[in-house]
């Protein structure tokens, strides 16, 4: 069934009178995104998230590692500090102010997400560029390595990498989550590079005598960035969720003086039925932020896809 708007688009395309004629992909993407309520929702969520995490040291009413309410924690009766004056969300199992932990937790969560994505991106960019730009045996070696990594389900690979470290900490979590993303980025880059190697603009640059290095970095890499940006946005969401899964399996950072949402959620698994609020708050934060990144990523993908341009 053809809807009226799509019929119009088809006619526009046939007549070459599409309103986007002559506009670059990035400019046209931005025009679509600016008016997309879905993208804006995601952007507002992420904007707030980044703002809160930057300001959290000033926003948090108490020290997140100070067990100030410890006298209200009664292990025998399974009691934790209730909601009270100065502690709008009560306290956690160690008598620490829960709101402060959530606020400060946003910072670590952001760090885990961003660092994991950047490391995965850097690794993937290096491997993918090497494979795609040189081809030949470099390509074969790199891609076999990537194939081995991809032949393991990604989250399972993250679990295995974490288990390699005798004493997990904040950084082992980031590394485990990041390494898993390397093969995905590498494949993405390589595919795009290979497609461009025989394209007209690269041929033209070669004919003009542009150095191979400059061709790779000035001509091929910038043209591959669209899908990479989309993937990065989506990885930011999975990195935060994967970090929670690691904590849940006891492979996360055991030091909880500086909280992180995934860790807060994973650590309360045994009291989920008695104190559900300790799980619902960090889980809710993770879900909202992951949703924010996903909304941005998916709308970006649609906007940057030349097929969906109108």
């Amino acid at each position, binding site marked *: *069934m053809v809807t009226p708007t799509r019929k119009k688009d088809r006619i526009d395309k046939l007549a070459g009178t599409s309103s986007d004629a002559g506009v670059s992909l990035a400019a046209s993407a931005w025009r679509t995104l600016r008016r997309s309520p879905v993208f804006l929702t995601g952007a507002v969520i992420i904007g707030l998230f980044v703002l809160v995490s930057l300001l959290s040291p000033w926003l948090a009413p108490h020290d997140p590692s100070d067990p100030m309410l410890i006298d209200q924690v009664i292990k025998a009766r399974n009691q934790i500090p209730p909601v009270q004056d100065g502690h709008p969300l009560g306290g956690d199992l160690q008598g620490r102010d829960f709101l402060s932990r959530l606020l400060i937790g946003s910072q670590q969560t952001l760090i885990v997400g961003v660092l994991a994505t950047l490391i995965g991106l850097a690794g993937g960019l290096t491997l993918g560029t090497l494979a795609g730009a040189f081809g030949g045996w470099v390509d074969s070696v790199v891609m076999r390595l990537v194939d081995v990594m991809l032949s393991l*389900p990604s989250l*399972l690979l993250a679990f295995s990498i974490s288990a390699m470290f005798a004493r997990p900490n904040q950084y082992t979590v980031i590394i485990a989550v990041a390494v898993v993303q390397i093969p995905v980025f590498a494949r993405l880059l390589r595919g795009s590079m290979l497609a461009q190697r025989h394209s007209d603009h690269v041929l033209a640059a070669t004919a003009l005598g542009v150095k191979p290095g400059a061709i790779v970095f000035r001509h091929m890499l910038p043209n591959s960035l669209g899908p990479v940006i989309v993937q990065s946005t989506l990885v930011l969401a999975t990195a935060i969720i994967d970090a929670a*899964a690691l904590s*849940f399996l006891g*492979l996360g950072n055991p030091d909880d003086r500086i909280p992180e949402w995934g860790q807060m959620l994973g650590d309360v*698994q045994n009291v989920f039925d008695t104190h559900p609020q300790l799980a619902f708050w960090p889980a809710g934060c993770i879900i909202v932020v992951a*949703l924010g990144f996903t909304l941005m990523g998916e709308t970006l993908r649609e906007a940057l896809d030349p097929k969906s341009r109108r």
Partner: protein
Amino acid sequence: MLRYTIRRLIQLVGVVLVLSLLLFAWLRALPGGPVSALLGERATPESREALTKQLGLDQPIFVQYFKFMGRALSGDFGVSTGVQPGDSALDIFLQRFPATIELSFLAIVIAIAVGIPLGYMAAKRRGGWFDNLSVGGSLLGVAVPVFFLAYVLKDVLSSALGLPTEGRQDAIDATRVTGFFVLDGVITQEWDAALNALEHLILPAIALATIPFAVVFRITRAAVLDVLDEDFVRTAESKGLTAPVIRRRHVLRNAMLPVVTTIGLQTGALLAGAVLTEKVFSFAGVGQALAIGFERRDYPVLLLLIIMATVVYVVVNLLVDLSYAIIDPRIRTR
């Protein structure tokens, strides 16, 4: 076709060999090595030395690897130290694998049975409230940590629906034939046992199905949208074919290729998700063994289970690739 299959299987052997080498190196690179893993960190130097000799760890690493591979080929992957101490790793795998197959199978059935029709309906009503709602729901499904959803199902939904939340089956007198509890009940016609095992599967399967469902839904929706735009669909419409015929012969058949690929790739999500879900529901499958294995650093079990997970993942995706030939006749002639 046959040559393609054989080539892929040879590739799989290569992947497993590289992976076993990496995992083996990993096991040896552990702080203190397997001796510490087995004895703990406070063992006396004498007992450490004795065990080092006994395990052959004083030999060069490649000798150790070939010995390990030799034992592995005869089915000896070592003895569990944490999951079921004393049992052989292979026994643990064989015992638990049917449970995970049952669970994953039900999960993927749920994902397909809900995801494909919903994806089709959303594509047909593109931009409407039904489309927006289901797309939103599928995005939310990916954003929720699997184990959190599992806990919510376990603690909130189980009492409302009266479903069990622990284990594979209540302690009822059931005959074991295949290790698949539901299937066993059907074969022996012990219907109550089959039903009981099925009830134990429902909640974990729903938790496990969320991510595959979300992905199947979105791929179906996108594929159907692509196909709806094609000229042959318009031709079929103008020929006056009825809607169900167009849906079956023209739209769904052409939209299924990417969907089937996705289903294959989702086995990976299922295997990893099973680790989390089986832990929450104390479901005695491979996933639970992996979860306990990671927790207690049971390396012989981890080594075998990770290799087996890889084999399953690669084989399922090979089968998916082969099934293209059934869906798309053009591939058969190639």
